[in-house]
């Protein structure tokens, strides 16, 4: 079946609303407007205002309401328009959703799913373009997912809804229009394992979310130079699938982490440190990181492009890990 990433997420939402009466959607513009990225388009008409609820422009309020509903036995799916705006709800997510199970001695659980868009590349400037996944990946008590393929866009949400704890799902905004084939019976996927998206023997390129496509394109280019790059999609940013990471790097002996977040204090640094701890004696070159330039994402097209990891910079970073030819 030909579909888009946006339609795959919508299919997952519709399926959840149909099969579980506890599920409802809530967020800014999810109802009448159909979602800022048109993900929930048509769902209000299909399921009515009880189950597809437009929220006021107050992230702290509607994320908090989602936490309350989850505590009360519902399975809310809360959409925050972008990760940039989610900082207004950090207190609810970090201090309440992530901690209540622990602080109640296991009496309470918060089966809440929060979806948010992330990432740059569409000239939406610094208010809308940052990649703050690592802020959430830092927090024990929540699970952080980054679907980068149609299968994961379709399948991570139902699996997340089955978990008793809060899950944050990051959808890179540049992926919504991505087209491709999805099996008619596509459904829930497992959430724990990183996925090898391309096999290779000379280096492992580790990435996630919106950077996966660029890294795969770079790997194809490297193949023309006879450099065989393995591409690993993290999928889960918390917890990290360390075993798969380490096993891949033990084979290829070199690692490049491509992360649209900033380098300082970021996820790429975490992945890199894990490899130092667990694969040091198998490394044949220093672990390399390719991240977004350390500045607020610029609006101007050419400056925005220059700030982000690109196919040619990924190719160059990979080449630098290999012997000079």
């Amino acid at each position, binding site marked *: 079946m030909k579909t888009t990433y946006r339609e795959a997420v919508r299919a997952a939402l519709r399926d959840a609303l149909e099969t579980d009466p506890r599920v409802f959607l809530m967020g800014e513009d999810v109802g009448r407007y159909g979602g800022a990225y048109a993900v929930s388009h048509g769902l209000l008409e299909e399921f009515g205002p009880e189950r597809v609820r437009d929220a006021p422009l107050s992230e702290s309020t509607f994320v908090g309401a989602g936490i309350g509903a989850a505590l009360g036995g519902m399975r809310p799916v809360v959409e925050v328009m972008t990760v940039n705006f989610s900082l207004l709800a950090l207190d609810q997510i970090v201090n309440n959703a992530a901690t209540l199970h622990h602080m109640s001695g296991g009496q309470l659980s918060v089966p809440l799913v929060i979806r948010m868009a992330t990432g740059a590349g569409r000239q939406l400037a610094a208010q809308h373009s940052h990649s703050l996944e690592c802020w959430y990946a830092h927090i024990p008590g929540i699970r952080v997912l980054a679907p980068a393929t149609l299968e994961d866009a379709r399948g991570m949400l139902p699996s997340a809804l089955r978990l008793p704890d809060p899950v944050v799902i990051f959808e890179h905004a540049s992926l919504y229009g991505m087209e491709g084939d999805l099996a008619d019976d596509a459904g829930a996927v497992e959430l724990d394992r990183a996925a090898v998206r391309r096999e290779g023997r000379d280096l492992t390129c580790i990435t996630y979310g919106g950077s996966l496509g660029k890294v795969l394109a770079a790997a194809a280019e490297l193949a023309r130079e006879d450099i065989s790059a393995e591409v690993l999609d993290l999928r889960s940013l918390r917890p990290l699938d360390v075993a798969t990471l380490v096993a891949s790097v033990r084979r290829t*002996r070199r690692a490049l982490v491509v992360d649209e977040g900033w380098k300082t204090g970021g996820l790429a640094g975490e992945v890199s440190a894990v490899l130092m701890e667990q694969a040091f*004696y*198998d*490394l*044949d*070159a220093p672990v390399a990181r390719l991240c977004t330039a350390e500045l607020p994402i610029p609006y101007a097209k050419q400056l925005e492009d220059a700030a982000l990891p690109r196919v040619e910079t990924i190719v160059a970073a990979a080449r630098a890990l290999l*012997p000079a030819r």
Partner: protein
Amino acid sequence: MTELVEQFRMPSLGADMQAGRLVQWLKAPGDRLRRGDIIAEVDTDKGAIEIEVFTDGVLSEILVPEGERVPVGTALALIRREPAEGEAPPTPAAEAPSAAAPRQRVSPLARRLAAERGVDLARVKGTGPGGSISAADVEAAAGTAEDPAVRMRRAIGAAMARSKREIPHYYVSTAIDMGPAVEWLSERNRDRGPAERLLLGAVQLKAVALALREFPELNSWWVEGAAVAKPAIHVGMAIAMRQGGLVAPAVHDTDRRDLDELMRMVRDLVDRARRGALRSSELSDGTITVTSLGERGVDAVTGVIYPPQVALVGFGRVAQRPWVVDGRITPRPIVTATLSADHRASDGHRGGLFLARVEQLLQEPGKL
């Protein structure tokens, strides 16, 4: 062009000196130096010593401040030599070479491979990122000497040279009456075929392993300047290879095996060693080595310790000797056991007690 700036290094003032503390500089930058001048005072384990220069020149830069303790060989100062007639003028200070030569970069994997294959990294040319030595460079260097016998000689050479260079060996020997063990074995083996027979080697191995339980300082590795007692006893057994060379694979948990099990493990190890089918853990886990050259007819083996181990036990042949038992000279089967031990980790007193314990254990072979 002749190099005109020399590094003045912390001298070694005795073979055991590893570092010294710079107490006082007696010359200042700009001072003219004559060969034989006292340039500084250094405090060593053996007291304060004045150190002299061996070059005529000018002290151009002091690199180590007073009060600092540095290893032998560290550059302490730069001395600009006086140009002899016809030599170029002194290099301007700005172009003076940095005190520390840049370290050759070696990837962790390349370093590990080089150690495993006995490749001398100083001879390897780096082609990895930034000129670093990568695994492929080590493999290429190892490949140039593909003959495994040559490679094995090189690895043995590297380990043994390091041992004799770094380990202060001491040796103690004891002649042990093997009568009880020989009698017990012949009884035990009476109804067994050749393949099931227990050999004296297994009995000696077990006695060494059991004795080690009481001497953790001999069942240790020397790591970064300190002896680290190993929690388990894995006795490495030296096995001569048919094409020359030897390996010493570990018999894991030697002290916890009964003699029949030990004998099976020894036979299996010898067989696999000769087929080249040893496991890496067997090659790296040994906590002490036992070598027995009795079958070659030698009386005693004074062995070289296999680093990072700190001890080795050598057994010679079991031979009938005139022995005094209860005031009478009697022929007895005697073996000489020799302990080679690392004096950094243990002393002869404990080494002697260890051998005495081995002897005692061998007097009651039924309890092994």
